[in-house]
């Protein structure tokens, strides 16, 4: 569970996972509900809520985990409609597309990316300290992972 907790911390969030309900299968982590926990066999392929995987020592969060973290106190930016669309197409975020910031604004920090409805679209790394006064065409947040990945996985 350490990779998950460490990842949450990178986003300025804290997460508590019940170790009895958190299972690791290969390099993948899953969170079970109490009913599933009673019936799950070891040879499952997928179970409960997928939290993410560790690959080459690096943690790759699932979108379910990002959604869970988005409901907590964490670093978040809200982006406008056009920016949201470009982000899920894999693009980085310009300063001018950001409509609100919660949590850290500092360069180098990870932040969740939310659309105008408060739905989590993914996360990125702030590469230019976010300044509310600036509305420029410079990339401010680099895309690390976005929900468009569901489409890219299929191709």
């Amino acid at each position, binding site marked *: 569970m350490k990779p998950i907790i460490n990842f949450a911390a990178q986003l300025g969030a804290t997460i508590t996972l019940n170790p009895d309900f958190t299972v690791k299968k290969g390099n993948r982590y899953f*969170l079970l*509900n109490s*009913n*599933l926990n009673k*019936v*799950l*066999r070891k*040879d*499952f*392929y*997928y*179970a*409960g*809520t*997928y939290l993410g995987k560790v690959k080459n020592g690096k943690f790759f969060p*699932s*979108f*379910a985990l990002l*959604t869970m973290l988005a409901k907590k106190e964490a670093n978040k930016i809200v982006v406008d409609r056009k920016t*949201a*669309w470009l982000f*899920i197409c894999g693009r980085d975020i310009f300063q001018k597309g950001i409509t609100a910031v919660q949590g850290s604004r500092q360069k180098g920090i990870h932040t969740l990316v939310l*659309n105008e*409805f408060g*739905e989590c*679209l993914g996360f990125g790394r702030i590469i230019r300290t976010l300044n509310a006064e600036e509305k420029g065409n410079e990339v401010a947040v680099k895309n690390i992972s976005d*929900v*468009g990945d*569901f*489409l890219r*996985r*299929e191709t």
Partner: protein
Amino acid sequence: MNGKEFFTNRYLQLGWKFQEATPKQAIRINTTNAKGKNLIERLYANGIDLKKIPFLENGYWISNAKVSAGATAEYLLGLYSIQEAAAQIPATQFTRLSDKKVLDACAAPGGKTVQLADQMNNTGTITALDVNKHRLKALANHLERCHVSNTAVYNLDARKVPQLNLKFDRILIDAPCSGNYATDKNWFQHRTLADVERNAKLQREILTQCAACLNLDGEIIYSTCSLEPEEDELNIDWTIKHLNLQTEAVGCPGEKGVTNVFGKRLDASVEHCRRIWPGETQGFFICKLKKRGDNA
């Protein structure tokens, strides 16, 4: 006689005159995720016009689309799934699903698994099986995208379900089948009666093993997208006679199950099933089976 003549002549004997069909594209709203999100208005703003499907609570035809319905943010966030209208019917036929132990015996690619989870509001458990390992990835992606949290997936042949040592309250058998011409333009060129009979045998084996894992008063929904009676009414007639299950009425459009198949008289209760011939939807067959308790 070519394949098309052979099969369409059989359909005529079952009381239906062949017609070309192109099923409309449909979506199903994942109500657990979309609650309070004005999804229909949001899709309209994106250039997707929807029309309610009268026989489905959460199903909509796509009447006009300026963008692909499979590439919107709302789709990627799991607010809806793209699911053919007739394929949405089987999961809606269960009596009360909340908190139940549910088996989805042939689950990949997962459209109906997600639908079951949505109807259960992620309560209870779903055990989802598929024999084909490379199809499990699509199933897992579907579950993740739609935030399903009550499902365990196994790479297991549905005929081996007793190995799990579990009993279920509800079982969906959306059986592997021969398909139909409405979704496969070359269907008549590559399908033979031998394929149909091979699939029918496999389906009976799946029914047998799933029935053994069904609790008393439990329900099985059996469905196929095959129009061939060997995979549909004849299998249900066999099930009634061999597996101690009874049919119950299916509440959806379509014709009654055929009880006289090419001169063979079937159990009268087979007419509780529904046979949907291709038209606005693809072809489909749906049957509800119940294992009666001792006091029934």
